[in-house]
């Protein structure tokens, strides 16, 4: 494809081939980290936003986006990292959520709006939404830790099917 014929949609199709290295069933577009695609005098710029400040997957994702675009004829594509507005799991598509569930990861809930009070800072006083077991669908689950195998996941246990599982944190 020549850059003259490229559209925003065609670029997004190429970017959909780039997967999150830590969640290879999800691509970067449905994850919600591609914020914009722009052309300036034929030069392509892709805006991406990091998930977590220290997410090690971001560097790999940047390299793969550049490589994927180059393979489709966009050798001089540029990546611009934008921080505002901050990424939220609410931007993840329904299709991506379903894929997480199929792979044994409970998808994120909608993000709670912070009330800024002390209560939200002290876990023991917070009522939390129920996380459904991705394997058996039971709501009879307990949170084991808010920190899991990657920055974006927490650890849970299903009391119905006795299976531990990951939950993609609402963020």
């Amino acid at each position, binding site marked *: 494809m020549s850059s003259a014929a490229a559209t925003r949609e065609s670029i997004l199709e190429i970017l959909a081939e780039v997967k999150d290295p830590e969640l290879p069933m999800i691509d970067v577009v449905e994850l919600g980290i591609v914020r914009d695609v722009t052309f300036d005098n034929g030069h392509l710029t892709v805006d991406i936003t990091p998930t977590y*400040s*220290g997410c090690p997957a971001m560097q790999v994702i940047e390299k793969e986006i550049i490589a994927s675009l180059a393979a489709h004829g966009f050798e001089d594509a540029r990546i611009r990292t934008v921080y505002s507005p*901050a990424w939220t799991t609410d931007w993840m598509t329904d299709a991506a959520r379903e894929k997480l569930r199929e792979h044994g990861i409970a998808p994120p809930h909608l993000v709670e709006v912070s009330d800024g009070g002390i209560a939200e800072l*002290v876990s023991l006083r917070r009522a939390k939404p129920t996380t459904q077991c991705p394997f058996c669908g039971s709501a009879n689950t307990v949170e084991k830790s808010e*920190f899991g*195998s990657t920055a974006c996941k927490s650890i849970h246990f299903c009391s119905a099917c006795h299976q531990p599982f990951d939950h993609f944190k609402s963020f």
Partner: protein
Amino acid sequence: MLGHRLSEWCGHGPILEEDIALANIALDLIGQATLLLKLAGEVEGKGRSEDTLAYFREAIDYRNVQMLELPNGDYAFTIVRQFLFDVFSYHLLEELQKSANKELAGIAAKGFKEVRYHVRHSSEWVVRMGDGTEESHMRAQKALDHLWRFTGQMFEADGVDKLLFSERVGADVAAIQPKWRAVVEDVMKRATLTIPNDPPAMTGGRKGRHTEHLGHMLSEMQIVARSHPGAEW
């Protein structure tokens, strides 16, 4: 600074979940520091990158509060320190989201979401240890008694802080103190821990005065970058 200290727990946590939690929090903090140092290097305009600022500055050029450079101690010490800092960081990042510098505001907005998780984790453990066994209570109280003298440094504003605040770029750190104090008092009460009456006597971390521990920590943190100048990773 704190990200590096927390990373020292990796593989040594008291239980697996805590080992993972501290490594995750360390990653968030190092990520936040990377973004802030990168921005600082760009603003300075002398070509210093985030790595140059982290790995090639001397102890005297670091502006961190001294509490963060202290050795980890036992788990109670690590957690009480984490809590005292997390509550400050939460309120600081909340303010910095309103910064006139859009980059800084964006970095703060991202970090703020991460720190919400950190405060919940550390506050939960402060309550669990303070209101736990005789041994855990004693250790948590000892940590609080030792750390309290350092806490005033978080709210010390120098000329740069004041200028940045007047330009609507930085935050008024002194104004954060009452909000910080309210959360700390609430959690310590639940944890049956007593806040010391002594004034927080240790000062100067933000002016480049440090404890003897910083040099030792930096020698370990910086050795790879300094032994292999120009190396990429």
